[in-house]
């Protein structure tokens, strides 16, 4: 099996999902994919299949909650929205991501 080109995203999937739900409000899985793809100017492409398990895990962790609703196309879809606990988690992940990138940049810029 060829390695997924997106596996760098593995650790940041939670961060991206929480951030998106925080700014955009309730969204279904497909909407999340689309949003992240377009906002990142197609630099980031979520592996669609791995999103579903991740969403369910986050729901079990009570970072997000879900509700079945009808979309404007008339389809049943599961809409996820961020919870208070999720917002706290988002702040933490934001912080650790910032620390990571700062650290990586320092190493790369060292000469």
């Amino acid at each position: 099996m060829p390695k997924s080109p997106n596996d760098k995203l593995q650790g940041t999937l939670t961060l991206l999902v929480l951030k998106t739900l925080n700014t955009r409000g309730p969204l279904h899985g497909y909407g999340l994919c689309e949003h992240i793809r377009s906002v990142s100017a197609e630099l980031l492409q979520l592996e669609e299949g791995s999103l579903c398990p991740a969403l369910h895990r986050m729901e079990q962790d009570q970072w997000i909650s879900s509700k079945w609703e009808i979309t404007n196309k008339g389809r049943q879809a599961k809409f996820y929205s961020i919870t208070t606990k999720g917002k706290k988690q988002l702040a933490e992940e934001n912080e650790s991501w910032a620390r990571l990138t700062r650290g990586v940049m320092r190493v790369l810029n060292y000469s």
Partner: protein
Amino acid sequence: MAWYRRWRNVFRDDALSTELDAELAYHLAETVDRLIEAGMPEPEALIAARRQLGNYTIQKERARDMNIATWLDQLRADVMYGLRQLKQSPGFTAVAVLSLALGIGANAAIFQLVNAIRLKLLPVKNPEQLVVVDWNKDSARAGAWSTRSANFTYTQWDVLRAHQEAFSDMIAWSASHFDLTRGGEPRFAEGLYVSGSFFPVLGVSAELGRTLSASDDSASCNAAAVISDAFWHREFGGDRQVLGRRLTLNGYPVPAGACCTTDCYELAVALPGGLGLLLSIVQARGRVRNRSSQSLMMLAHGSVRWM
């Protein structure tokens, strides 16, 4: 209550599966729409959308694992598998279940017995203060040699009881069985000859009438039998007018003088010989003759420091 939902999902697997299918189906449908809008013909779009999603079953399984108490789900699956296997070979199942049932039943029965005889204290007053009186090991002694070790004779008991100063009281008994019929085919009941101190020392009281006491240890008293609760119900149907009714013991008429409380049943298991009837040793001598009444076992009541 995330754990509660995970537990519940173990037993509503179908509902969970349907929900996951619906979620993934929506995802597929939206992807197909986008591809068609981009100009792809529908059949190809369907295939492409599938490919984009990746391995459908794996995604679904992984999403399912997030929603379920995995260990409990595996346990459930194992149990179901086991049941299916058992169903496939009913003969084996029958044999296995039967032998397990017999094994468990036998062990439970054995434990009940061991518990009553060895583990539980005697169901009497101050059981921790009772000691068994016996001959020194390997001592040269007289005695009643009905078994490998000697029991006491009545004369020895008389002397011991009269002259001992170590204990507050002593009791003696002799297991025996009594023919209940008046001729014809004999029918036996297990019983004990006991000293008059038996009931006061052990603290066993009577449901009806009165138990034997030290004053009954006299040959001039009329013989009377104390019957156990079990014997009372078996022979007299628990009749409360039982006092004074005649029992024929080894051909001699003896009235029932008292009925023990239910305590006696456990005593019967705990003491050798089983217990249906209790008669005064002294009264029995010469009346309800039985050779084994000459062979006594003894218990003494008092401080344990003598052991």
